[in-house]
């Protein structure tokens, strides 16, 4: 320290948190219980996430994505998908931006030819510098992959998360039924299909939302949010009874679980006497007019996976992921899963999906969710919303999730450094916006 230099406060210092004293559910004591969740702006790492649909990665195809601030390159070779950190150790270029592969075992950086082993990530050679002493001494992080139900999953890990501790994919997926039908009975609908069922077919879409992944995921199992869906075509055309809201009326309305050999998550006992559907608001003179019951149930799992049983039709379940890309963008995955043991059933499901389910459910219905989440972003984006929100009893669902996530996550992602989105108004991001293709999930390929 220089003797005469003035001692200054850090300019980045944030002021004291001010907690209002109104009678809201999330007082300072409740908030401190989910402090780790509040820190997880860039997501939870060391978990399995969907990266691409199988059909988005053909043999020999290379794609780059970003999850939890970690750039990842995928290449399919002999049917198998390999995943490496998509940042060349040399100058930080993304290999996926201009795929260059000279054999089945490696991927080369298109800039200076640094060539990495697909299996281990090791630097195997440098195209124009094959005797360099760096070769064999360094490399990029490899990520385990699994391909199920038409989805490629990647275990997004910190560089030093031990490979021998990588849990099975099932630990980051919803509970399976009928295996759990006794534990969580569902008298009003048949057992939900599961991603890992051999005959399961998954059809869906993924797209980028401009909000933090946490405000995105909390929308899906918030039982008061269904108000935004009242006017949706799928609700009105089917004359469904969609309540104005669903209130918790019992202290066992949600069951959390931390299974040693399965996922951590929460189950909401919807369509039981533990939740009360609100069908009328006398103050406002509003009534729900539908006549056809539409029972469903939501459960939610680490690292941010939603299962909606019996939705949008019988024998179908909707799965959703809110995969953090940066702290202000996430990839919204909507997948409908149905068990189709025969080719004929597969074709029927695909036809139904294309003609009705994708346009009316995944787009028509869920578009409202996408907008609703983005509407919260300004409030939560600078961190103030976590302190200033005033929650009510229906928010028992997100609060339970925040506590569970604080406890059962396998790691809090560090803020992205040297990656897309770490500089919010970078010239590249601004150019992408000005060209009408803002923050994308897939890498922008170089074309020359």
């Amino acid at each position, binding site marked *: 320290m220089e003797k005469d*230099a003035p*001692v200054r406060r*850090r300019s980045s210092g944030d002021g004291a948190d001010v907690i209002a004293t109104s009678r809201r559910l999330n007082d300072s004591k409740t908030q*401190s219980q989910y402090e780790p969740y509040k820190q997880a702006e860039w997501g939870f790492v060391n978990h399995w996430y969907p990266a691409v649909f199988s059909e988005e990665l053909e043999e020999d195809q290379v794609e780059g994505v970003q999850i939890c601030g970690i750039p990842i390159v995928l290449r399919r070779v002999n049917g198998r998908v390999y995943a490496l950190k998509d940042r060349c150790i040399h100058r930080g270029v993304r290999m996926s931006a201009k795929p260059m592969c000279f054999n089945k075992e490696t991927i080369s950086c298109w800039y200076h030819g640094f060539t990495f082993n697909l299996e281990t990530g090791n630097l195997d050679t440098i195209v124009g510098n094959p005797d360099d002493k760096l070769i064999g001494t360094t490399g990029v992080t490899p990520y385990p992959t699994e391909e199920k139900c038409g989805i490629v999953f990647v275990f997004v890990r910190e560089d030093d998360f031990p490979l021998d501790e990588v849990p099975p994919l099932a630990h980051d997926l919803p509970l399976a039924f009928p295996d759990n039908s006794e534990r969580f009975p569902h008298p009003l609908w048949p057992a939900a299909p599961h991603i890992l069922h051999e005959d399961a077919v998954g059809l869906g879409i993924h797209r980028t939302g401009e909000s933090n992944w946490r405000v995105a995921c909390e929308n899906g199992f918030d039982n008061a949010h269904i108000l935004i869906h009242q006017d949706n075509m799928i609700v009105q055309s089917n004359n469904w009874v969609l309540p104005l809201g669903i209130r918790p009326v019992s202290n066992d309305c949600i069951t959390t679980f931390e299974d040693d050999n399965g996922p951590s998550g929460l189950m909401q006992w919807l369509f039981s006497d533990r939740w009360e559907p609100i069908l009328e608001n006398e103050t406002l003179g509003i009534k729900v007019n539908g006549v056809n019951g539409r029972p469903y149930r939501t459960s939610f799992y680490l690292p941010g996976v939603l299962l909606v049983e019996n939705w949008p039709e019988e024998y179908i379940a909707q799965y959703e992921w809110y995969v953090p890309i940066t702290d202000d963008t996430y990839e919204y995955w909507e997948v409908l899963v149905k068990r189709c043991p025969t080719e004929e059933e597969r074709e029927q499901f695909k036809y139904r999906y294309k003609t009705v389910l994708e346009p009316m459910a995944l787009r028509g219905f869920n578009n409202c969710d996408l907008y609703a989440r983005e509407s919260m972003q300004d409030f939560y984006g600078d961190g103030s919303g976590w302190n200033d929100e005033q929650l009510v009893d229906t928010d028992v669902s997100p609060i339970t999730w925040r506590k569970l996530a604080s406890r059962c996550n396998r790691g809090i992602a560090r803020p992205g450094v040297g990656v897309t989105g770490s500089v919010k108004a970078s010239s590249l991001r601004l150019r992408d916006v000005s060209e009408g293709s803002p923050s994308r999930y897939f890498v922008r390929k170089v074309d020359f």
Partner: protein
Amino acid sequence: MSAVQSYEVSVQFSDGDIAVFPVTSNETILEGALKADVPILNQCQSGSCGSCVAVLEDGEATPLATQAGCLLDSELAEGRRLLCSARAFSDCSFQVDYTTSAGAATPAAANVFIDEIAWLSSDVVRLGVELAEGDWADFSPGQYMRINIPNTEIYRSYSMSSSPEQLPKLEFLVRVIPGGLFSEFLSTKARVDDILKLEGPYGSFFWRENFRRSKHLLIAGGTGLAPLLSILDQIRAAPGKKPDITLSFGCASDKTFFGADILDLRKAWMPTLETRLTVDDAGESWSGLIGNPLQAISTDDIESDAVAYVCGPPGLVNSSKKVLSDFGMSESRIFAERFLPE
């Protein structure tokens, strides 16, 4: 008088690195090591803090007759030596249980601003500070800083209760003693936004990452809880499976007990953490255990690969070392720090 002799001393670090350096017969082994830039942890250089302890594997090295060291006779018999208070009488080899990088964070001076002075009980204050612009202080969880008492040349040592993850913020737990200089300053003069000077990090009591998968036994008395909180938060932040952790924490009486809310939060955040709370002297409303935190530990808590971190008053530390050894734990897996009131 015999002529000055020179011997070759080697120190093996836990990562396998070996440093070899010359030591003369009229200097301490630590002096020789520091001349050769060998990263031996040290602080007081007078035999009292215990930071520079090493295990003599081969050769002859004896404590200075003129200086009282903090090692027990049994520790000396096991070959432990304080390098600041030992001379070589032949070529020697030592082992230390930390890596070369652990000692490499050389102590530095830094300014901090006071953020918080929170009374957790009638005699414990949580002191929250933030490093000033341009200043930095890396440390390993478990280590301590020396804090300058403003307008004096006097320092007091306090372990961080925060983890390195929280830098540039630091937190300390301070036991307030009537008449203690820093206590007096904290309870009467200190205000939020005041500037303090500190120096560090110091200490060889810190989390050993190589044992991170082992069952952890954490035993703390009073503000000895501080470095163990830092270790807990570091374990939570470290990648990979979390070990089973039993934390036994005790205070003198239920009237001075503190930290129940802090530990409840850690339990909520860490499924593998179990806590046991003890006081020696309890009123009727106390719902925890009676006794000292060591008494809450039994052989059932010891697994073959367990590792223990003990921090508190000298009596607790000494008896913990003995009892845990009697339970079958290897001394090389018991790490301890003695806390003295200021």
